[in-house]
């Protein structure tokens, strides 16, 4: 891929709303992405391979659990810092950001928020340091948007439980050391269970032939009479609200992350349009291209203000699920539109791996579906403002 010349847009001087520390977090993450991700990511995406060596670098920079307290190996940063990190990492690639989202918000967060002290001490430092990689099993073959219907379940057997069922579309599954699995107990109530690789009856077949998130590994989690010690059940929250709480945290990160992908597409298209000459003028001088570029920067700017405000609310513990849904949905939608338009600005060059745009575009097709589909987030807003659920 061509060298990474990325310059971040800041049309409304949103930087002035950030602290010096936020800017240092962002710059450090950006420097890391330029050094470690940009030079190799295209190759891994083309090969459909997760760049496993990045786990250590991501851990070293602090991308695993940045907002988890320091005593558990996190950095104890605020939510805006977390958002900025996700923005920069997804600017590099949505697949790498997905790995961070899963590790931080879907594995470390539930262990931190719903686990007991022994579980926190046992798992969190190893997850922060990258010694362990985790995955999050909620979706099942027949229960995607409607996870409450899940079939995966367990029965008690002395100080163990016997886990049965299967999860599908699970990021990091093929190489994860542990899985936070959501399963129903004998009364049908959903609980989180930590399943470790190596437990008998637990397998993680990989999902192949993806056109999207190719630099991220996706797989299944299959449980056939897996005996899990009872001490691996997360004790402090149960019911569908527990996994949904994790999703709030991950979706918040995606709201920032997708903007990063959008910024990369815009920045690439703007630079290309100024340089590419057709009919004796740079194509940036033609109205049709200006319309595309002007609309891109408008949407990015609106998105930046939205996620910044959401970050403030999250720092104060006031961000609602519905507010997070709105931001996730908006960011991904504009990122997808921007990727498609930006690709056209590059003409034929836009379809090659010399530029990041097509990879972002394909990645975003997963991002618009996982962590609540585009439609489902709209229904969440609809329910929130009307009081009527249109899900069923």
């Amino acid at each position, binding site marked *: 891929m061509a060298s990474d010349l990325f310059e971040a847009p800041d049309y409304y001087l949103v930087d002035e709303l950030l602290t010096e520390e936020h800017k240092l977090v962002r710059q450090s993450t950006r420097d890391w992405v330029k050094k470690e991700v940009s030079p190799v990511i295209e190759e891994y995406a083309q090969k459909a391979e997760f760049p496993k060596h990045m786990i250590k670098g991501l851990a070293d*920079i*602090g991308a695993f659990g940045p907002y988890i307290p320091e005593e558990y190996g996190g950095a104890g*940063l605020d939510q805006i*810092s977390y958002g900025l990190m996700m923005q920069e990492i997804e600017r590099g690639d949505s697949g790498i950001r997905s790995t961070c989202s899963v590790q931080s918000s879907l594995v470390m967060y539930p262990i931190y928020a719903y686990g007991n002290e022994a579980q926190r001490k046992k798992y969190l430092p190893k997850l922060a340091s990258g010694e362990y990689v985790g995955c999050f099993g909620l979706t099942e073959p027949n229960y995607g948007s409607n996870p409450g219907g899940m079939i995966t379940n367990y029965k008690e057997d002395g100080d163990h439980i016997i886990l049965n069922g299967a999860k599908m579309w699970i990021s990091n599954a093929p190489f994860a050391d542990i899985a936070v699995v959501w399963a129903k107990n004998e009364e049908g109530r959903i609980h989180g269970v930590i399943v470790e690789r190596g437990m008998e009856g637990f397998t993680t077949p990989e999902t192949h032939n993806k056109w999207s998130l190719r630099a991220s590994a996706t797989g299944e989690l299959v449980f056939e009479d897996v005996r899990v010690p009872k001490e691996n059940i997360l004790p402090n929250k149960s019911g569908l609200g527990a996994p949904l709480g994790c999703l709030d945290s991950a979706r918040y990160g995606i709201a920032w992350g997708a903007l990063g992908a959008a910024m990369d597409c815009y920045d690439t298209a703007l630079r290309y349009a100024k340089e590419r000459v057709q009919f004796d003028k740079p194509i940036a001088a033609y109205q049709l291209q200006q319309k595309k570029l002007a609309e891109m920067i408008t949407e990015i700017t609106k998105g930046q203000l939205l996620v910044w405000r959401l970050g403030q609310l999250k720092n104060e513990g006031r961000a609602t699920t519905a507010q997070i849904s709105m931001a996730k949905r908006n960011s991904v939608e504009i990122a997808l539109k921007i990727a498609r338009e930006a690709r056209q600005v590059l003409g034929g060059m836009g379809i090659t791996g010399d530029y990041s745009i097509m990879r972002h575009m394909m990645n975003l097709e997963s991002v618009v579906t996982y962590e609540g589909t585009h439609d489902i987030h709209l229904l969440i807003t609809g329910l929130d403002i009307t009081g009527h659920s249109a899900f069923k």
Partner: protein
Amino acid sequence: MKVLVCISHVPDTTSKINFTNNNTEFDKNGVQFVINPYDEFGLTRAVWLKEKQGASVTVLNVGTAETEPTLRKALAIGADEAIRVDAEPTDAFFVAQQIAAVAKEGEYDLIIAGRESIDYNGGQVGGMVAALLKWPFINACVGMEIEGDKASFTREIDGGKEKLSAPLPFVIGGQKGLVEESDLRIPNMRGIMQARKKPLAVKEAVDAEAKTKVGDFAKPEPKGAVTMVDADNMEELVKLLHEKAKVI
């Protein structure tokens, strides 16, 4: 071992350089500032001294409050404490006097400055500090090892290297080679959090006078457009060189 690292706060190398006020002042508008690259090599070497030889590392800048993010970054990379001498750094001698005052007070064992600051490219501060303190000065330093109260150095000289030694305390003007580019550290999140709690002391400047005064700045002429001449068209080329470029 107490190490003082002098950090100059400079425009990022990709910045677009402009001047204001009749070309007498640098236009900071929209410019991003970074740790002077030569100083970053020195800082990294100092952090190694901390990690491998138990040194304590203080970073120092002579500048106004706007340089504090640069010092925070140095703390996030691994320095233990920071000092900012609160003054507009008007010239190299002024800056050197401030650094020398801090060095005397803090009883440092060595001072790592950069070979030059990439903003005004004076290449003077390190040498002046050494002179004010009557300490040895090793400029263009590409290697430094310390054992007890002695140090050995490698310097880059025209077409080769020079090896020398000196007792502590001393001043170096460092550059790449002290550590390599791949050794430079990007601050990580834990470092950034720790930097929050590390001391950043603001000191008043000592009385000192600048010895130089800037008239104005001028940018190089922009590069002209390239005219392509067909390889077979000698006549056209000669004509252009003669009439347009006026070089023959």
